[in-house]
């Protein structure tokens, strides 16, 4: 606010900078296309050679610079911020307490949570519905930063094709229990341990 009020009271000298347009040589697209063709051709030849060598077991297949998508899939590092995961407790139930800090912090406003009372008084509150509209999501990671209980993380998965809009509306079943998670990812924060330690 201070800088704003300062700029309005003090007159600044007007500096006109001339914008530099790209030179005429950048309009020559042919060299770029040729360079691309060279790269593709190089990889094609290398792949062919390596594929032949690999069939005879001379080199390993993973040396190849390309993969046979979708049969082979490239895995990013675990730190990659891809598709969301809702973590679970040791008993397999959701870790989320429905505090809605992720929904509050979400700049794309794509998280919708409906909270409810749990039968277990030690749990008290839990989400009966947790939905992410993944087409709105900007993968900024603010949700996992806001989460006080390590309930939402962004995992390394990134291939998310779908045939219609409903497939991009991730619900609890998709976020916590999709087959790739093999029963769910267990949260590092355990309420039971915390209670036993008297915290």
């Amino acid at each position: 606010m201070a800088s704003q009020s300062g700029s309005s009271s003090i007159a600044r000298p007007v500096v006109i900078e001339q914008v530099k347009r790209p030179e005429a040589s950048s309009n020559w697209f042919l060299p770029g296309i040729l360079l691309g063709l060279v790269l593709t051709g190089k990889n094609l030849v290398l792949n062919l050679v390596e594929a032949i060598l690999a069939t005879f077991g001379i080199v390993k297949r993973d040396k190849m610079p390309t993969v046979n998508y979708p049969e082979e899939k490239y895995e990013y590092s675990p730190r990659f911020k891809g598709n969301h995961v809702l973590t679970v407790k040791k008993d397999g139930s959701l870790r989320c307490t429905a505090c809605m800090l992720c929904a509050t912090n979400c700049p794309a406003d794509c998280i919708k949570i409906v909270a409810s009372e749990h039968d277990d008084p030690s749990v008290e509150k839990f989400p009966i519905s947790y939905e992410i509209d993944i087409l709105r999501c900007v993968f900024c990671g603010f949700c996992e930063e806001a989460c006080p209980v390590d309930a939402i993380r962004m995992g390394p998965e990134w291939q998310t094709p779908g045939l219609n809009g409903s497939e991009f509306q991730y619900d609890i079943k998709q976020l916590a229990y999709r087959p790739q998670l093999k029963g769910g990812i267990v949260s590092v924060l355990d309420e039971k341990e915390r209670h036993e330690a008297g915290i």
Partner: protein
Amino acid sequence: MVTITINGKEVEVPEGSTIIEAFYQNKQDIAHYCWHPGLSIAGVCRLCMVEIEGNPRLQIACNTQVMPGMKVNNQSAKVKDAVKWGLDFHLINHPLDCPICDQAGECGLQDQYMKYGQYDSEMGEGKVKKHKVVDLGPRVVLDSERCILCSRCVRFTDEVSKTNELGIFNRGDRAEVGTFDGKPLNNNYSQNVVDICPVGALTSKDFRFRQRVWFLKDAETICTGCSTGCSVKVYHNKEGLFRVKPVYNPAVNGHWMCDQGRDVYKFVNKDARLLDAKVVSGGKTEHMQATELAKRLGTTLKGAGKSVALVLTGAYTVEEYDAILNYFKSEVQTSNVYHWINNPENFDTFDGLLLRGDRNPNTKGLAEALSKNGFNGTWKELTDGISTGSIKTVVVAGPENIALFPDLKAKVSELARAAKLIWLGAAKSADLEALTGDVALLPTKSYVEKSGTFVNHAGLRQTVKRVTTIVPGALSLTEAVAAMKGEDVLAQPKQQAGVASPTVGAGRVNNEFTLTRGVW
């Protein structure tokens, strides 16, 4: 008047007031958890500490009277240190369940910690575990771990509701709020203890976990649950209304409101509302815009004379009554206007605190409007008129909160005997839907969707401003009359002239739970 100095600023306060009242009257920040302006002084939270010049020890502001020339200060390093240690004691056994706690976002302890706390706890011991999710009664849930034993709720049941359900049991850090021998907290004012709880120990079953408070906008209006007309705040967002809380208004309700009034918001939300205009005629049903229906009705009603009767309930504003009565007098040219009193047997009852037997917000306003226009028809004249066939069309401005009209079913079948029934109303009702004769249903706006004046039982005129829109197509009676006259009515009308001030009622000040959140 006594002149004292608060944080270096000279102020005048009435003689005999306490230091905390002096802070409160002069809009100075001071923390208070056990002190409440509507309750007696307990002095147990020790967080309203002030330094008084010439006094070696800090004093609590809630139980110290002002003296001429007194210099008090709650900003000094000494006070800050005391508050920090006080907070440390309060938070020894307080659980860190802000994510689950319903009070998060409007919790006094949270605010105070962000201001004065932010220390590393000195406690090496584990927290004392107490009872969680205790069912105190039909409307309130208790979490003893979060309770800081300020005793506000106990004093409320002792002093205000005088039902004495709550007490503090055990001693030291084993002390807990509870009810004696399992007697439930079950009085018509029980949800006030949720409002006055400075932490999230007492939560309302109705509001619990439904929304986080920071997703809600608030607006001041008037409770339409009975003819007392309490000043209230409604909390709403795009999904509808979620809760109602009282606003301090010494002329009407003081600090409190009843639990029945808190339920009024439910009848305003979309699932309980009549959503579009409908005409049932000759076995066919036709849906249309409310303005379209009103225009059609206008052509049939114009100059129809004595064969038309108007039935009014006490749920509408003074301005709406004026508009519709003028229309019936000058354009329809009939004097058959009748007042539907829903519960005549207990109309004049009063529970001694706030709730009245007359469950309409504007009975007095309606009576004034009727006598001003010289309408004094009795209900018997109406039923006789329908029976003899002299009244062919009945126009009803129906109730908003149909749950408070036990005679609704009987009245609907009584009025439906007329050749044509035109029902203007906000509420969806199975009795109305079931009608097969010549019926027209026109959705009207609820009290949060229009501006106007309500006159309460004592004759106090209170204005309300539009809060939000819930049913976009609904019309107020004023707009419906305008459309009947053939004028073009906008779906979203401009603010009514003459209702400029947002203040409601006389002598109102902001309540202490007002929160300043970001701009929406």
